[in-house]
């Protein structure tokens, strides 16, 4: 097997590798700025210099030439090489900054040049704390600067587009953003203008950077040159918690991280998943943090004489139980939702079955022509395939409207049917309608009973994307009834760990008075005398994998280990529909 020696250690490899990526894959480190595994390699930051050599082979025998000590004779490249664009070759010997003083010196000097015109504004820079330039300057940089002349001034606070702001002085011209628009989003909106020490990235005159994926450039910017217009100055990165989750704004199931502080989701960034979204996510998905924070239904509400009044949980529970008891099971229509998780829809289905009601129905939320073949999909809901795999009955919007208007009582899982024009407000006024909702909407406004449930940011639950991939979320923000110190899955940031409820940066206001759907339903089942009880989404999923053939072998630990599981197509589905 081909071999390569890095800092004196032997590694075997197969296939084609770029040296820098190979080094990183071994868990070693070489500093770099412009290299990005998903884009072309221009090698223009010159930071990843290493010393590389090849052993000398005897031309005739093909044997390695040996020196007097019996070691291979190495022919070193005449100059240091950028490791990002050099291919690993058999017998190659590599010295990084760990073992070679010249490499260490070269990297230090390159950094000194890069920093020559870089402003020292880390204390007010959004990138500080997650800035490759900052980190690598600490690790490999010079102790001071020998440049005594004024730094070059360039445009600052340039609104490149609706969502991205440029500070050209901070830019080190790695061209990652330009390559992103050229190679990934293919809008070609950015370019590097001017030259020498005056160059910086910008758009063509008179155009704006309104790419649907523009905020990815903020993520990949190795300095604070490109910042998000929305997130700018909102929080320092070290104050936030980072929790893995799934994008719920469309059917792609983009893997994301939720960044929370004091139980508010402050920003959303993409999380690498080779099989779904690579390193990227659409700008739209990042806006979803508002869904988790704003306009939330907190505390149940009941419609009394045409006015929604906040009610206690106990009253909500009793009212719903009473209403269900009043009706024959057949008269109650359970409506599932592609916007709700697999677990929630399954629990709804279980209740419906136990009550002898019709199998729950749902209607997909499709907007034709919305998708772009990349990360935006026609499907506006995260779990349409999950509903199908569970065996909910899929109806067209018109059929669902008919069902609802014909029903005496409707239990609607989080789906804003009025807002998306499936039914009119009038349609759901006639039957007694209970809405389990995360956010206030035109739909929840006209419901007879509104019961607040948790969002994807507050519970662990799974979603099945357009490619039939089941992936799950992790609770990122607390509700009134959860505590991150007691839930081992929830991440604890510095402020959570060391703060107390008496600190002025901690408030109770951001905790929403809501409950996971399965918890409320368990209470309801207890009240109705049904045999159904779930503690967590994990419990529900364990049962689903036992009972629903499509979900055989699916569990939280399997999903975590494989970053999602693709569901097998089962014959069961075709029978149902």
């Amino acid at each position: 097997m081909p071999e390569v020696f890095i800092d004196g250690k032997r590694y075997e490899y197969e296939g084609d590798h770029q040296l820098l990526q190979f080094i990183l894959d071994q868990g070693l480190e070489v500093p770099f700025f412009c290299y990005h595994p998903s884009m072309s390699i221009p090698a223009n930051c010159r930071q990843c210099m290493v010393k590389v050599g090849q052993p000398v082979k005897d031309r005739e025998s093909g044997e390695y030439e040996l020196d007097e000590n019996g070691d291979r004779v190495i022919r070193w490249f005449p100059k240091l090489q950028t490791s990002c664009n050099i291919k690993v070759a058999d017998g190659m010997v590599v010295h990084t900054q760990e073992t070679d003083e010249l490499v260490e010196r070269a990297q230090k000097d390159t950094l000194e040049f890069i920093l020559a015109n870089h402003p020292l504004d880390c204390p007010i820079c959004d990138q500080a704390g997650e800035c490759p330039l900052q980190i690598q300057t600490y690790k490999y940089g010079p102790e001071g600067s020998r440049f005594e002349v004024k730094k070059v001034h360039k445009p600052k606070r340039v609104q490149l587009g609706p969502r991205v702001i440029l500070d050209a002085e901070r830019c080190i011209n790695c061209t990652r953003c330009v390559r992103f628009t050229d190679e990934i989003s293919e809008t070609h909106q950015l370019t590097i203008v001017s030259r020498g020490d005056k160059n910086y990235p910008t758009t063509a005159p008179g155009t704006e950077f309104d790419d649907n994926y523009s905020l990815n450039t903020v993520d990949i910017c190795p300095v604070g040159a490109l910042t998000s217009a929305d997130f700018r100055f909102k929080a320092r990165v070290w104050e936030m918690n980072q929790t893995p989750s799934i994008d719920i704004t469309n059917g792609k199931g983009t893997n994301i991280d939720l960044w929370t502080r004091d139980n508010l989701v402050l920003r959303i960034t993409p999380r690498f998943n080779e099989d779904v979204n690579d390193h990227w996510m659409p700008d739209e998905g990042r806006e979803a943090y508002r869904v988790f924070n704003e306009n939330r239904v907190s505390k149940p509400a009941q419609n009394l004489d045409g006015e929604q009044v906040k009610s206690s949980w106990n009253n909500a529970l009793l009212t719903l139980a009473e209403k269900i008891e009043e009706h024959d099971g057949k008269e109650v229509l359970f409506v599932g939702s592609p916007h709700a998780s697999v677990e929630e829809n399954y629990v709804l289905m279980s209740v419906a079955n136990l009550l002898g009601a019709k199998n729950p129905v749902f209607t997909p939320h499709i907007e034709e022509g919305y998708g772009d073949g990349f990360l935006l999909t026609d499907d506006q809901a995260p779990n349409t395939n999950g509903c199908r795999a569970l065996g909910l009955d899929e109806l067209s919007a018109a059929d669902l409207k008919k069902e609802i208007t014909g029903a005496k009582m409707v239990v609607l899982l989080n789906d804003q049917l009025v807002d998306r024009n499936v039914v009119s407000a009038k349609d759901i006024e006639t039957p007694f309608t209970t809405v389990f909702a995360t956010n206030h909407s035109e739909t929840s406004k006209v419901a007879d009973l509104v019961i607040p449930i948790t969002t994807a940011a507050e519970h662990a639950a799974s979603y099945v994307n357009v490619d039939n991939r089941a992936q799950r979320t992790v609770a990122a923000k607390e509700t009134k009834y959860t505590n991150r110190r007691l839930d081992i899955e929830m991440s604890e940031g510095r402020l959570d760990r060391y703060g107390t409820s008496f600190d002025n940066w901690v408030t109770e206001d951001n905790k929403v008075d809501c409950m996971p759907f399965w918890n409320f339903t368990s209470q309801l089942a207890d009240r109705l005398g049904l045999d159904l009880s779930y503690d967590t989404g994990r419990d529900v999923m364990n049962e689903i994998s036992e009972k629903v053939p499509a979900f055989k072998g699916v569990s939280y630990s399997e999903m975590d280990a494989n970053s999602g599981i693709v569901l097998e197509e089962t014959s069961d589905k075709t029978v149902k529909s």
Partner: protein
Amino acid sequence: MAYEFTEEDLQEIEKIKAKYPEVKAATLPVLWVAQNRFGHVEPDVQKLVADTLGLPQAHVHGVASFYTQYYKEKKGEHVLDVCTCLSCQLCGGYDILEHLENKLGIKAGETTEDGKFSIQEVECLGACGYAPMLQVTNDQYVNNLTPEKVDDLIETLKAGKEPEYDQIGMPLRKVK
């Protein structure tokens, strides 16, 4: 103002495109076609070039802004690039520049009101042996300048004539 290439220009552009395996490579020569036609490559002209070649506008803008010989704004009919880099500076480059500024009544970087002349202060043009010197509109060098020579040059250009080429021999190097 909407810019448009003439039929001739378009034919020339087709010829240029045929020379290269990819259209992108035609950016530079086509920018020259545009600058020769309009006298500058303002953003609108850059857009025209981009649209004609089917390239991203940002790319054309990046290329045009990289090279100082492309004028990104309207210039006079004659652009006088006066060198003030080291050799010219030592031989009186700044005096020549000042003389020119006074004569035309504009500062470096400006254009005369009649649109005839622009002055630019530039870095080394590689003619240190004949300092001080200036270049006329990306083309002819006028060397060994004196105030009188500058006056003559202005008159020549005003008369619509081209300045004469200086025949400059290489100084003989003594070989021992």
